[in-house]
């Protein structure tokens, strides 16, 4: 009880303080203004006097000075007629100085003139002093106006006027309140109440009466505030304070308090102060809140609400409206909490349920009507009003929920409320757009929130989807941006719900175990969402372009389009689980691509690329590891191969994605397809079949690329062929199983060799035709392919042929290559033949000549046979080498480097290589003098051959051999070998030398000719 008294007193003092502070400030300003007016008035008087003094013939009676306003009492100002010549005052010194030209001398102006105090009469100058004033004042010298006389407000005045009344009324109130308490022991409740009522009414009445007088206005308002506070308290105490209790019915007391509050409100309106009236209403609401009456107090609260709404609407006090809204719902909650401490229980309605609900709806309705019908004037009012509108709905729904014992009604309730909100929104649409936006949003939320209360699963989502689409279409038809945006936002919310409630559990499920179910409901829902989103984002934006005039709408619908992609992707994943997903996605890519081209939509093109990338990624991470079979066929092979085909089809799209300038579509898709199929081949085939498969695939890509003139296809072919070449070294060449009839190494590498040479031939033919310019890359690619073929063939020979015959095989290959070079007139083959020749020579040298003879070997594996056969093959190539030299002679003339003597003169290596090999063979195979004889014979043969072909280098080689033999005889044979061998050697060598000399003489002209 005492607490309440103190609260009331504090509130009253606070109110008084606020009022008086405001009034003090006003009074200060008023005082300053009055001072200024007084000073100005005085100055005018002096100027008039000065003017009259300047023209003494025209003495005019001085008018009575009029003192207007000012806090000082009606001062008696003596006229100049009574006081003689008026005393000039000093120029006024005011904040806003106005220059007034006066013909008054500065010297004549007294310096110490001060404005008289209210009680002091003016002191005017004597006539004698005035006579001394000059009559004429120089025009050029205008004296500054005299400083204004300062009005001095004494402390006493201030204290008496401003503070005494406040102190007094506080003292009175406290005294009365305390006095009443003191009287508890002596006077009965009726007496105390009577005294309280009389005193409070007296204070109130006194304040109202005194307020009429200006000078008592501040004091009066303090009295009024205190009076109302005291009246309210006493009315409250009539029932609630034991010492003053005279009423037995709380209802009666409530009614009285409400009457007092209403009177207080009505009276406060006079002051046009939101704070003041707000405090009054606060007291009223507190009254309702603290009462223990059941429904009745709530009805009182409803009446209060009506009153508050009326006041607020009239005065545009939106902040007060917000506070009132809070107070109304808070009061209702306090009552509900007393009645239902634990809230409503389903199936157990409380007696006041209907009434309470009706009241809540009533509160909501009146505040809603206020919101719709009263249009704010400023931005701040708009914000406060809109916040109140939202709070109104929140309050209603919260309390309805709290007291709810029939949850099954919630759906209908929200639905109805949503519809009603829409109605209000349309009502407000023409008056105030802000209200329309807020109410439409609230209505949409209510309608969305209603659905889950009755539906679940896909029905829930579909209904939300329907609502979102209805909003969007409505916005389209009505050209109402709010509905369109609400529709878009509703779409976002629906998608989130779908993902969280529908898709996420399925993802978790499928991660744990295989799932072949199609989940039709979820899939259909996702598909429907995707179709609608795409319809909105891609079709509607084109059909009605105004809907994307704003940047926000453009962004929102753009995001919607991508959301459609995400949802469609999930739909396909739901419908086609496992390995089949990528096929569905790639079909969707084709569809998107078609639409992208049709609508020239870069969004759809980008989405197609995103989905394709996702499919490729899934193929690489999931499908390639699938080991299941479908009707006996590998599921991996089916799905990945088809994916490759679909990617090739998808590369025909024309529209590019966002942010990409280059023409990337066909190359990117085809490269992806080639990589997928190539990898699939690795997974599906045996290791040694992979290289052939890559080679064949690469060849086909190359041919298709050539046919369609698509360089990227050819590049893919090159890549695959290169991969096959690298792979055969690690896979195909390792197969050495002799159990097969035909070596797997042979029949797996031969097709590759053929493919490499085929590619080279095709590129060479293109270059020759010159129909389409061949880049240096393509040209080099052909050369590389030819070398691939030759190296692969050489490697095959190395691994397939017996080690003893590898040299022979290479020599034969070299012979074949130079024949090819001559026939096709291509230096590339000539170069390759020379490389093979070198390889064969090294092989023969290292394998046969510098290694020990096997202990047991067939003749066909012996050193003599192998080296001899190889040399024979090399020499067999000489006629072809000479023909090649003739063919390349024109080109050789233009060369000045080492190629001139090797590549363009193949007959030289093809002669000297076997010559050296035979010479070394003779050295290793024979002994002592036989070596010399062998070299001699060899040299002679070389010389004879040289004469036949007319080749000087050959001749010199023959001579060198002969000389080598001679040197050996001199250095070694004469001293080391047996006599028989010595003589035999000398005879043979001598004969050879003689023959050579004879030939020199016989064929001198021929020799000179070729020198």
């Amino acid at each position: 009880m005492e607490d309440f008294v103190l609260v009331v007193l504090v509130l009253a003092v606070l109110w008084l303080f606020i009022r008086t502070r405001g009034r003090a400030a006003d009074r200060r300003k008023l005082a300053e203004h009055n001072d200024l007016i007084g000073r100005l008035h005085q100055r005018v008087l002096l100027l008039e006097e000065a003017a009259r003094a300047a023209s003494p013939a025209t003495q005019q009676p001085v008018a009575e000075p009029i003192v207007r306003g000012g806090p000082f009492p009606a001062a008696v100002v003596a006229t100049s007629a009574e006081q003689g010549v008026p005393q000039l005052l000093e120029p006024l010194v005011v904040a806003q100085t106005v220059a007034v030209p006066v013909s008054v001398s500065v010297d004549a102006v007294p310096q110490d003139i001060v404005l008289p105090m209210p009680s002091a009469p003016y002191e005017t100058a004597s006539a004698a002093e005035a006579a001394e004033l000059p009559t004429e004042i120089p025009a050029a010298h205008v004296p500054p106006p005299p400083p204004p006389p300062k009005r001095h407000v004494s402390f006493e005045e201030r204290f008496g006027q401003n503070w005494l009344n406040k102190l007094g009324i506080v003292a009175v109130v406290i005294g009365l309140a305390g006095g009443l308490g003191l009287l508890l022991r002596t006077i009965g409740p009726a007496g105390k109440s009577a005294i309280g009522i009389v005193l409070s009414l007296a204070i109130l009445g006194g304040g109202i009466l005194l307020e009429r007088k200006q000078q008592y206005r501040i004091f009066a308002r303090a009295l009024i505030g205190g009076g109302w506070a005291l009246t309210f308290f006493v009315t409250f105490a009539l029932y609630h304070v034991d010492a003053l209790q005279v009423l037995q019915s709380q209802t009666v007391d409530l009614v009285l308090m409400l009457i007092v509050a209403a009177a207080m409100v009505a009276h406060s309106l006079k002051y046009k102060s939101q704070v003041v009236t707000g405090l009054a209403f606060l007291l009223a609401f507190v009254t309702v809140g603290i009462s223990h009456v059941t429904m009745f107090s709530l009805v009182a609260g409803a009446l209060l609400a009506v009153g508050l709404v009326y006041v607020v609407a009239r005065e545009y006090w939106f902040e007060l409206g917000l506070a009132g809204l809070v107070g109304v719902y808070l009061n209702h909650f306090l009552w509900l909490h007393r009645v239902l401490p634990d809230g409503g229980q389903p199936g157990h309605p409380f007696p006041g349920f209907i009434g309470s609900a009706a009241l809540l709806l009533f509160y909501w309705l009146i505040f809603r009507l206020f919101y719709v019908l009263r249009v704010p004037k400023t931005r701040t009012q708009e914000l406060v009003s809109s916040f109140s509108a939202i709070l109104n709905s929140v309050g209603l729904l919260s309390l309805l929920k709290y007291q709810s014992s029939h949850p099954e009604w919630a759906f209908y309730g929200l639905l109805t409320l949503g519809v009603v909100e829409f109605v209000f929104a349309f009502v407000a649409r023409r008056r105030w757009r802000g209200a329309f936006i807020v109410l439409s949003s609230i209505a949409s939320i209510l309608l969305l929130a209603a659905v889950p209360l009755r539906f679940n699963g896909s029905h829930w989502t579909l209904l939300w989807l329907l609502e979102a689409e209805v909003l969007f279409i409505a916005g389209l038809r009505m050209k109402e941006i709010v509905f369109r945006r609400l529709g878009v936002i509703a779409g976002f919310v629906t998608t989130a719900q779908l993902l969280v409630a529908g898709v996420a559990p399925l993802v978790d499920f499928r991660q744990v175990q295989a799932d072949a179910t199609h989940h039709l409901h979820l899939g259909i829902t996702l598909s429907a969402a995707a179709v609608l989103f795409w319809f909105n984002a891609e079709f509607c934006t084109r059909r009605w372009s105004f809907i994307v005039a704003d940047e926000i709408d453009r962004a929102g619908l753009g995001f919607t389009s991508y959301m459609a992609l995400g949802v469609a992707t999930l739909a396909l994943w739901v419908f086609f689980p496992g390995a089949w997903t990528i096929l569905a996605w790639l079909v969707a890519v084709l569809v998107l691509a078609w639409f992208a081209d049709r609508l020239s939509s870069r969004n759809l093109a980008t989405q197609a690329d995103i989905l394709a990338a996702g499919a490729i990624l899934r193929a690489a991470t999931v499908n390639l590891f699938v080991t299941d079979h479908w009707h006996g066929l590998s599921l991996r092979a089916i799905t990945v191969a088809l994916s490759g085909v679909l990617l090739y089809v998808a590369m025909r799209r024309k529209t590019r994605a966002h942010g990409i300038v280059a023409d990337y579509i066909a190359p990117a898709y085809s490269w992806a397809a080639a990589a997928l199929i190539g990898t699939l081949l690795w997974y599906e085939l045996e290791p040694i079949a992979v290289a052939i498969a890559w080679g064949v695939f690469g060849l086909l890509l190359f041919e298709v690329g050539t046919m369609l003139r698509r360089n990227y296809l050819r590049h893919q072919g090159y890549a695959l062929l290169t991969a096959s070449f690298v792979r055969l070294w690690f896979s195909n060449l390792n197969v050495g199983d002799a159990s097969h009839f035909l070596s797997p190494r042979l029949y797996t590498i031969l097709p590759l060799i053929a493919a490499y040479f085929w590619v080279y031939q095709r590129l060479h033919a293109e270059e020759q035709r010159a129909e389409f310019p061949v880049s240096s890359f393509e040209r080099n690619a052909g050369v590389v392919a030819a070398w691939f073929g030759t190296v692969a063939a050489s490697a095959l020979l190395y691994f397939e042929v017996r080690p003893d015959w590898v040299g022979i095989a290479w020599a034969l290959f070299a012979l074949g290559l130079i024949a090819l070079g001559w026939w096709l007139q291509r230096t590339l083959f000539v170069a390759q033949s020379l490389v093979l020749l070198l390889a064969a020579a090294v092989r023969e040298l290292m394998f046969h000549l510098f290694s020990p003879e096997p202990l047991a070997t067939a003749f066909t594996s012996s050193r003599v046979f192998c080296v001899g056969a190889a040399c024979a093959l090399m020499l067999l190539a000489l006629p072809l080498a000479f023909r090649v030299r003739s063919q390349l002679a024109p080109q050789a003339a233009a060369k000045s480097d080492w190629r001139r003597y090797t590549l363009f003169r193949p007959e030289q290596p093809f002669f000297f290589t076997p010559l050296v090999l035979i010479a070394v063979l003779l050295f290793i195979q024979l002994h002592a003098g036989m070596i010399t004889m062998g070299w001699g014979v060899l040299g002679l043969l070389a010389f004879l051959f040289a004469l036949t072909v007319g080749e000087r280098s050959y001749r010199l080689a023959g001579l060198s051999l002969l000389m080598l033999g001679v040197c050996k005889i001199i250095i070694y044979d004469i001293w080391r070998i047996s006599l028989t061998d010595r003589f035999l050697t000398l005879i043979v060598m001598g004969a050879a030398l003689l023959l050579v000399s004879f030939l020199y003489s016989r064929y001198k002209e021929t020799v000179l000719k070729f020198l």
Partner: protein
Amino acid sequence: MKRWLPLSIIVIAGILAIVAVQWQRISARPSAQSLLSAAADAQHEMTRVPAHFDRMSDSDEIALGDQLASEYAERWVSPKQDAAKNHAIEAYLQTVGEHVSTGARRRLPYKFHYIPDSDFVNAFALPGGHVFVGQGLLALMQSEDALAAVLGHEVEHIDLRHCAERMQTEAHLRNLGALGDVVGLPVEVFLAGYSKEQEMEADRDGTALAVKAGYSPLGILQLFGEFEKLEQRGTSAGDKPATPVDEAAQVSLQTVAGYFRSHPPAVQREQQVRELMRSQHWDTPPLRRLRKF
């Protein structure tokens, strides 16, 4: 038409090859074996010429070989209770080995040692004429003919200077200046095997030595059959790598690890011996029983 015909032939040939491989299920795990063999052979051949002119003398080789052999023999000291048995086995090896080595080109004091370790399924040769045979390898043999061929194989590694060249190569690589420092070479240098070509040479001439000594070439064929079983167990077709990346990693690791272990497959070695039997018309007397101890 002219252009499409050869293209078609190539494509069809490729497809037929794929079909043939798939039909026969030829699954050879990819490895760098062939490349390693070729590289090792090429390296060996390239060093033949300089090695020819940089040969160690027989006396130096014997001296070094004796030192290496005495060091290595200490690693496998047999327990006292088995000493007599091991000596007997060693004497048996010496008998067979001497008989076989009479046909070698180089006249060196060939000595044969026994390694009493059942996990040692191998044999190796040291320069100068020392041959070591493991207990595990002896366990795989089913005839004295196989033992003769193995001893002949190792003798030929010495006869053809494979061991000497390996020793000189390792000495250069490890910057072992004086010949005496070569003694510090680990035995693994000689255990690692030789190039494919060298192994084939040793097989060829070692079997020839055994046949010349009166043994049957079927003995070594039986042993190659055992090797083939071991190889198949080690490279089973079911161990296909999971992804192409795994395959590439395996090949790389094998390349690094197997550079000096380029043993030709047993089937190739068997093929060579059969070819020699056919071309040289070798007799195939009955196999002699391997003496048991």
